[in-house]
């Protein structure tokens, strides 16, 4: 079976600092993969290399067998890749609905239309409201991002990615900075994502994301230290070493 996402021997240096060292990982279709590691382990860098925000020095990234590295970011998205950002990257002056509409437009040929009124495109707005309802923001669709709380913005990030019906979804710390209640809301949203979506999730805090993961990859100083099922990784002495020190 072709992996949904396959990374082979990926390397990236920032000047003298290696951020990603010989990283290889293979995520099967429908899998829920958790990537953990301390601050500066290269988790977000790995995402940036996969999406094309950064160009690697060497290695390969394949989506369902297709090499991505020569493609610009937007083409990778058209192949079924979506991501959320750890540092919120939204359109603050626009409504939540408009934010999701921009996500939907990204994959719609209509985005080149210079003549019709965007506001008249009810199919886009209906789909956007649906995606917002999915993450529990249905009632806030017409508020601007500036008027929403941090937790709501995190969920908006998720709605924008989910609205695109991606094949592979990269989530960068979707639980960061959320209250207990908001965390459980986000976890519910994740649990409802259908199995034809492969999810790779970065989470700094292991406790909050363990239940979700089937397989876990532990990164440390840009290298894959441990990889395996949840119990394997938790039991591995190297995990304890990285997290607790020796």
């Amino acid at each position: 079976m072709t992996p949904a996402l396959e990374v082979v021997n990926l390397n990236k240096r920032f000047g003298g600092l290696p951020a990603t060292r010989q990283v290889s990982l293979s995520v099967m279709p429908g899998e829920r993969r958790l990537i953990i590691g301390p601050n500066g382990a290269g988790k977000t860098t790995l995402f940036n290399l996969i999406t094309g925000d950064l160009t690697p020095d060497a290695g390969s990234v394949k989506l369902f067998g297709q090499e991505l590295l020569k493609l610009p970011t937007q083409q990778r998205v058209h192949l079924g890749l979506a991501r959320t950002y750890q540092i919120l990257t939204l359109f603050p002056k626009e409504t939540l609905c408009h934010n999701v509409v921009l996500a939907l437009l990204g994959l719609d040929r209509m985005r080149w239309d210079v003549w019709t009124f965007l506001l008249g495109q009810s199919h886009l707005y209906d789909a956007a409201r649906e995606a917002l309802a999915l993450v529990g923001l249905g009632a806030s669709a017409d508020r601007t991002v500036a008027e929403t709380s941090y937790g709501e913005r995190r969920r908006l990030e998720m709605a924008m990615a989910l609205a695109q019906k991606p094949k592979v979804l990269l989530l960068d710390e979707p639980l960061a900075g959320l209250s207990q209640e908001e965390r459980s809301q986000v976890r519910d949203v994740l649990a409802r994502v259908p199995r034809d979506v492969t999810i790779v999730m970065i989470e700094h805090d292991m406790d909050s994301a363990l239940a979700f993961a089937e397989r876990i990859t532990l990164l440390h100083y840009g290298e894959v230290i441990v990889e395996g099922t949840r119990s394997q990784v938790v039991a591995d002495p190297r995990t304890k070493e990285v997290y607790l020190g020796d």
Partner: protein
Amino acid sequence: MRRKGVLLFAIGMALIAVPLIITSEFYVNLASQILIYALLAVSLNLLLGYGGMVSLGHASFVGLASYAAVLLLNAGFGQLASAVLAILFSTACGGLFGLLALRASGIGFLMITLALGQIVWGIAYRANTLTNGDNGLRYAARPHPFGIAIDSASSFYWFSLIVFAIALFFIWRVTRSPFGASLQGARDQPRRMRMLGHNVWLIQWLAFVLASFWGSVAGLLYVYYNLFISPHAISLQQSAEVLLMAILGGASALTGPIVGAVIITLVKNVVSTYFERWNSLLGAIFVVVIMFMPFGIVPGVRQLWARWRAPKKLERAA
């Protein structure tokens, strides 16, 4: 909504009536100039306000379209063919300029557009055999669109008004379209837009081409109005003035650059007959506006209006 329609109709009627109310030829001509600069500023604002790209070379499209029209007409082409080919040529140059300028963003973009504008100016100034250098070129005569003469001040004003209205309508549609939304998204969060599947570079390039197209149309109107083109029309100062119009009136509003064009053109042409230091006055106006309305006149007045209305609304609700 209905009130907006009534207001729009009233403004339209007032604009049509300008040459009937103002009988002085000087002021009717001034009104035509305002329309030409307003179109130039609105077209620039596609880049500035909607695209977040500051260009200091927009006057070059006045030059490219004007010189091309003169040279084509002199080469024996008809009025219509000259007009169409001139706009095509100027827009194609815009496409090329966009290709070069979009290698960079921010200050880099600004510097490249500045350099490209200076190159066009330099060619106009130095290529004596083609452009007649500093002396400029004369355009033989205004065209007769659909057999109607536009030689008088008022008929030319109406002609410009029709062109301006069509252009504004098209540009308004663009700003409300899916492409317009993508352009504004690319301005605010280019990285996110790429991650949503948008080709940010192509969006910005197409906006550049659109802006150069409508800038070229304004350029054609310019040469029809003056029946003359010289390097002075495309100097850096001209580009800066158009940019100033958009910023003064408010780049975030479609109508902002129009208000800016009205004020600057009036100060330049009317105040300058009474007051030698009109440039200082323009500077003072700019400083005062930016101090009290940092986003320009139209957004500033809108804000004041909303603030003035808010207590009344509350009163009525109570």
